[in-house]
């Protein structure tokens, strides 16, 4: 029996086990769950698990009811509120009608920005010697030093201000933002693959803004219309005339860019491209004229490193995030003297 999905500010009354409710206030998907002793709404956390064998597309439910479909391809003729679990990517989508167009959008709860680090805890009691005798005092690790874990904006600011004395914090923030923005627009590091549907009589699709923090930067691929017109940053118009009275569908690959400095970049971006962000920020600061730290040579060097990082990021994303890494040469000294 097909489960039903309801969209609304309040949960539906008398749900059946397996029914889903999309809380339009919190943007959270819940599932009515019976654990044997009680029934309650539990959040559907949408964690991608190991990909299982692909199943056939789910059977559409009766008219007026939302359908949860599981399969490798999106279900045909979805209704607003229908959800589709993509068996390939492990991603949950929901069919949304925004008033002008209908499309599958990712049903994912965006994490908020990382909060500030908490205060350091009190120092523990010193070790006074165990059964084996006294030990040498263990040097205290500087675990409270910021920047020793994967990067963040604060770590980036710290690194820049360590290297360039005399630079103002606001200037660092401004140039860091320009470097991060440039990284995403140049490398198209964040890409989204969307299956879309255009209803009869509808002539435009808009994918921008993507969410509260991300905007569409450019189209990287498009399929589904014979006469499309792309209107930056994220709108597609069907130029067919008259406007078709048939349903059109297709897919699009979008490159996204952050909309503001507090956009969550993700741990992978900070882990892999921190040095690129740093080089981009430093190059912009060194290139500024009339400052104590103006240094055209260093600016060029850092700009080169930034461009190198952007090229690497672009190659990485074009290969589907599966690369062996940068080619490297065996150390010349390891071969012995000739």
């Amino acid at each position, binding site marked *: 029996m097909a489960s039903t999905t309801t969209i609304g500010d309040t949960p539906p009354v008398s749900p059946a086990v397996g029914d889903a409710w999309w809380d339009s206030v919190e943007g959270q998907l819940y599932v009515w769950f019976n654990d044997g002793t009680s029934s309650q709404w539990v959040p559907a956390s949408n964690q991608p698990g190991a990909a299982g064998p692909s199943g056939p597309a789910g059977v559409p439910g009766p008219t007026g009811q939302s359908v949860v479909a599981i399969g490798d391809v999106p279900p045909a003729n979805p209704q607003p509120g229908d959800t589709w679990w993509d068996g390939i990517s492990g991603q949950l989508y929901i069919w949304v009608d925004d008033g002008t167009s209908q499309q599958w959008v990712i049903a994912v709860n965006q994490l908020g920005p990382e909060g500030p680090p908490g205060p350091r805890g009190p120092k523990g009691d010193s070790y006074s010697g165990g059964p084996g005798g006294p030990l040498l005092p263990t040097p205290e690790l500087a675990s409270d030093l910021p920047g020793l874990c994967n990067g963040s904006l604060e770590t980036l600011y710290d690194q820049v201000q360590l290297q360039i004395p005399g630079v*103002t914090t606001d*200037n660092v923030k401004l140039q860091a933002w320009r470097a991060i923005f440039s990284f995403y627009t140049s490398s198209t590091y964040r890409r989204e693959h969307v299956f879309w549907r255009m209803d009869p009589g509808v002539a435009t699709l808009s994918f921008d803004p993507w969410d509260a923090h991300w905007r569409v930067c450019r189209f990287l691929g498009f399929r589904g219309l014979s006469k499309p017109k792309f209107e930056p940053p994220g709108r597609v118009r069907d130029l067919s005339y008259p406007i078709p009275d048939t349903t059109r569908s297709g897919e699009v690959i979008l490159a996204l860019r952050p909309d503001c400095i507090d956009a969550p970049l993700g741990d992978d971006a900070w882990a892999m491209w921190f040095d690129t962000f740093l080089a981009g920020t430093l190059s912009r600061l060194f290139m500024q004229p009339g400052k104590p730290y103006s240094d055209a040579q260093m600016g060029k060097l850092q700009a080169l490193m930034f461009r190198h990082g952007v090229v690497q990021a672009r190659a990485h994303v074009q290969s589907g995030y599966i690369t062996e890494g940068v080619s490297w040469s065996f150390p010349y000294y390891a071969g012995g003297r000739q």
Partner: protein
Amino acid sequence: MARTVGVLIAEARQLLNDEVPISGLPRYADDELVAALNEGLLQVRSKRPDAWLRYGLRTATPVYALPADANKEFPIEDQFYSPLLFYVVGRSELTEDTFADDGRAVTLMSKFAAMLLKHTG
């Protein structure tokens, strides 16, 4: 101690050896010193506009007066506090006065410009 306009003027007065005596008047009135500070802020504005990013690059540079603004916070980053202190002292020493020291004035004014514009590392 918070860095305020009043504190900066008090520190400048110390460097000028012009603290208010028990009787009599100081050589430099508060108005003169705070006028030097206002002029120094304009100099920072023209030499280091990045100091004013948060305050606003298209916002009028503040003009302070004592005693009304004595507790106003120093408007830009701390790294500009010392150069401005040197500027206030140096500019005050430029005044034609029996006790003024032209050499010290030139030194402090040059130090002000160097701290803002030159790499000293």
